[in-house]
Structure formats: C-alpha cells, structure tokens
C-alpha cells in the first residue's frame, strides 16, 4: 500500500467524524472518498493531509508513519474545495508560490510554472487574477498550484462542487486524463456518486464516520456489502416483502430488499424475445412515464408495489394504463449485517442480460 490509514478515529465534541477507519491506496491509483454531506469524508482527507489531527490511529505514506510530520512536510498537494486561490496574486504567482517558498532557482521556477500553465491549458492567462477567471479555469490553476512542487500525493476536496453542472462533466474527463498523464497518486472527496464512478479507480464509501466499503466502481455497484452502499449507489427502491413475487417465494416476509431499475424488465405480451420467460413474469400496469432525455423511466404497479425500469426510446411506444409483462430477475436482500444478491429462482440458467 502506498497510502494507508490505520484505525483512525476523530471526534469533534459529540460528532464522530471517523470511527476506526482503515484503508489503503496503491501507488498511481485515483481514489474517491464518497459519502453524503456530514459523513466525515472531508475530515478524513484533511487528516491525511495533516490539516486536522486524528485522536488515534496512524497515517502512513510510503511506508512511513507521518502522524507527527506537519502538513507542509508530508509532500502532499492539496486542492481546496473553493480552491483557496490567493486572490491578490496572478495565476503565475499562485502556481509559483510553493516553489518560491522552497527557495527554488528563479529560472527553474519560471520553467516549471510555464510547463504547468500549458499542461492545464491556460497559456496566455498567467497575468490574470483569480477573479478574472471562470470556475473551470480556477480549478485548473488550483490543480497546477497543488502539483507544482512535485508532490507524491494529490488530495482534492470536492474538486467539482464550485463548478456549473454544464462544465462539470467536461472537467471530470480533463482532470482524470491530466492526473493520469502526471501519474500521481490521488484521492478526492465527493458526494456525487456519478462523479466517483466516472473518475475514480477505487471508491471508498464513508457514512457517519464509518467506512462502508472500498472497491472498484463495478465491484461496489455489483456487490454492495452494506444496505447503505446498496441504496447510495445507483437508483433504488426498497421493498418490505417479496414473497408474493414469482421466483422469490423462498424469501421471508418482512425481509427488506432493494430493487434497481436495471433489475426489472418490462415488455409487451407479444414480445418474441422474452417468449421463453413467460413462466416467471408478473403482470404490471404503467402508472407513470417520465422522459429522462435519452430514455424513458416507467413506473409500474406490480403486486401492489411500484417498481421502476428504464426503457430505451428505440423500443415500441407505451402508454399510461397499459398492461405489461414485468420480470424481476435480481434483488439485493439486506439486514443489519450486510447485503447479498438474490436471483430469481425461475430463471436458472438463463442470462437475462444477454437477451
């Protein structure tokens, strides 16, 4: 492990920001600390940086315990939530600051700063002040400033929170590519699951100071370990009782389950493709149709509960009140201890996703 937290705890008065947190990140990876606001993720990042001090536990970087090493000597680049650009300095001076503090050679500083300016695509803007830049440009300056002294590790606190939704997507791709180009190990904090899934190699899910799960985006999506993760990642509906559904008769009444739109298939009775599955379908009535831009979201009343599913616009059109065949082929069953996948028993041997 390149960066490691071991049994970290931190309290602010009554508020527990970290409860015995341990995890590690391999060199060169990009990790996301994901969780709802107030979950403690920013505090964890700040403890890593040395901006906060943990009550107990160790922070280890490159095999060295850095608990007593001040933030400025940990070799970490930090991008603050609102970038914390020095408002009275130009773009150039902002990026050069860390190098100047280290008393680098003037020509070397110039060279490095100009290299970074062109890396982040801000050529020609070096004499501007932060308030003369757009949100996206500011983020680029903050990024360049953080990596200017060649840190071993880059930490980013909600790097996209201050940016318009429109530009955000574009910046995500840009940041991911640039970090890969630089090749630096990095960890960023976010509350936005799309952002984490899209940018990170590893996702660390934090809730109420607890580490819920760590893994690749696909892993977390496919195999959520806790009810929280199952609900937090992806859209989902929670049902109390599934024993009335075909193929799930074995499940105990009262067993809570999570159903995602992807687990539900709805088709018209005359659909040839699903002919072989008719023994497993339930009957549903369309309650609501919502247009989501590139697909339709259908809400169907099935066995007295509402389920949602997404429908491609390429398929035949449907109408509210129309009767549909509904196939539920997978759910997450969960209790206090964790979540596990349950497949529809009647679909043994049939891989619905391949149809």
């Amino acid at each position, binding site marked *: 492990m390149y960066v490691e937290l071991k049994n970290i705890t931190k309290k602010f008065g009554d508020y527990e920001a970290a409860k015995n947190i341990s995890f590690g990140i391999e060199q060169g990876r990009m990790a996301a600390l994901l969780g709802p606001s107030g979950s403690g993720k920013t505090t964890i990042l700040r403890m890593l*940086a040395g*901006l906060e001090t943990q009550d107990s536990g160790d922070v280890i970087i490159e095999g060295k315990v850095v608990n007593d090493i001040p*933030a*400025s*000597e940990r070799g*970490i680049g*930090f991008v*603050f939530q*609102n970038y*914390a*650009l*020095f*408002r*009275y*300095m130009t773009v150039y001076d902002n990026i050069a*600051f*860390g190098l100047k*503090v*280290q008393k680098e050679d003037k020509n070397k500083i110039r060279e490095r700063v100009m290299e970074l300016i062109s890396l982040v695509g801000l050529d020609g803007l070096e004499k501007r002040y932060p*308030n003369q830049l757009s949100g996206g440009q500011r983020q680029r300056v903050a990024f360049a*400033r953080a990596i200017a*002294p060649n840190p071993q590790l880059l930490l980013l606190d909600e790097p996209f929170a201050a940016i318009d939704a429109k530009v955000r997507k574009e910046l995500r791709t840009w940041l991911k590519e640039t970090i890969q180009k630089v090749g630096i190990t990095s960890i960023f904090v976010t509350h936005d699951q799309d952002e984490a899934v899209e940018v990170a190699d590893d996702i660390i899910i934090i809730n109420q100071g607890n580490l819920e799960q760590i893994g690749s985006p696909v892993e977390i999506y496919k195999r959520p370990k806790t009810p929280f993760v199952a609900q937090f990642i992806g859209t989902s509906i929670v049902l109390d009782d599934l024993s009335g559904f075909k193929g799930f008769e074995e499940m105990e009444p009262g067993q809570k389950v999570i159903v995602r739109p992807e687990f539900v298939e709805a088709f018209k009775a005359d659909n040839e493709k699903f002919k072989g599955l008719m023994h497993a379908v339930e009957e549903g009535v369309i309650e609501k149709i919502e247009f989501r831009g590139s697909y339709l979201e259908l809400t169907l009343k099935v066995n007295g509960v509402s389920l949602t599913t997404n429908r491609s616009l390429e398929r035949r059109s449907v109408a509210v009140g129309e009767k549909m065949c509904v196939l539920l082929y997978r759910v997450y069953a969960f209790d206090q201890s964790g979540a596990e996948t349950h497949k529809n028993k009647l679909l043994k041997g049939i891989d619905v996703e391949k149809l």
Partner: protein
Amino acid sequence: MKKKSENVVKWILIGISVVFFLLMLVWPLFEVIFRAVADGWETYSAALTADNTVSALQVTLIATVIALVVNTFFGVVAAWLVTKFDFRGKNVLSTLIDIPFSISPVIAGLAYIMTFGRSGWATPLIDKINELLGTDISLVFSVPGVVLATIFVTFPFISREIIPILHAQGKDEEEAASMMGASGFTIFRKITFPHIKWGLLYGMILCTARAFGEFGAVYAVSKARGKTFTLPLEIDALYMAGSSDSITQAFAVSSLLVGMAVIVLVFKNIVEYKAKKKEEE
C-alpha cells in the same frame, strides 16, 4: 398625483437632513475658525507659537504615534488570532478587547491612577524597576502616563476594523499557503496583508483622530501644563482661564485640531473610496 407627493416627502426629508447637517456639523467648524481669528492674525499666530502650545503639540504627537504603533501591532496580532484559529473562550476574548470602546474615558484615566498612582498597588513595583535601572519613570502625571491613557482609549480601534474583513475572507488561503510550507511571516505579508490593507489604514486613521483628540482619559493623568499637557488639555486650560483673550487663544489652538480633523476626514474618504473600488473589481 402619487409622484408629486413622493417628491414632497423626498424634499422634506432632504431639507431636515440638510438643516441638521448644517446646524450640528458644519456650523461648529466655522464657529471655531471665526472665533480663532476674531482678534486678528497676530493674536492667532501668537497663540499657536506660545510655549505651552508647542509643548502640548509635542506631547500630543508623541502619544499619538506611540498609541498608533502599539495598537496597530496589537490589532493585527489579535485579529489574526481571532479569525485564523478556533479556541475556547474566543468570544469572551473578543468582548474583552472591545471594552475600552464602550466605557467612559474618565474611567480609563482613573484605572491607571489606581494602578500606577501614588497609592496604586503597582507603584512599589515600578519604584523597584526604576531603582534597578537607575531611571525615574512615572506612569501617571507624566508623559508616559498620557501615552498609556491614549493607548487605552484607542486600544480596539484597529482590530475592530480588520476582524470583519478577515472573517469574510476565511482561512482557506492561509491554509493553502502553510500547506506549501510558507512561514507565518510570509503568509501574513503575501496572503493576509493584501486583504486587510485598506481596512488597516482606515483603522489607523480613526485611531489617529481619537488619539489626537482624547480628553477625559488624558485629563485624569496629566496635571502639568507646559510639560504633560496635550493640545485638548491646553485648549481646556486656555478656555477655563475665562478672559476673552484666552478664550480666543483656546479657539486658535482648536483651529489646529479642526484642520487635523478635516484632513483625517478627507483621508478617510479617499481610503473608503479606494477600498470600495477595489471590492467592486
């Protein structure tokens, strides 16, 4: 219809304001000038060059400069402490710093007399120190006493101006700079100072004005005319002498302070204007 009655109200309010303004603020200024030169230029310049006046001007300048330096230093340090760190008792500390602002200056003078005066508890201590150093410094009824009283009444002037600015600015920038290994002094000079520049200057102007004009606190600890009197005390002495000549002299000396007040106001307005422009940028 409506428009017209609105206009009437507008001009009535402006009228009231102008009358109040002229009567309360403008007239007194002219009254001072008028009375200062009532007996002609010769009397006027004689009053200004009298030994007592010159001595008072010196004491006033000494007290003002020292108070300005001490309070600027304190104000910056205290503002940094209150806005960049979280600690228990911060609110209490902020309140305590503001005390001199809300209490009678006479009490300030009294407080120093009761600490350093003949029967003050700290007097034996001061005597010991004097003995040790072979000096003869007295902290009341002396120039140092005047300086101390002046410092007291203007104590929170600078911190009051910069604390709100630093609060609004937050501490992200300082954190980012320390993260990169900058020293406290570098952070202050390069990051914090540019933010508070104008506020600091504004606070210093207010501090100067108050230090120049302080009366009650200084009056309590300064009794020797021609030695420890400041300009306001000299004006008081001349005025209380009661003859029409000395009253004219009192106004002549006052005109100096009026000139100072006008300069302070002009300066203050320039600073405010610049700060506002900077903010709008």
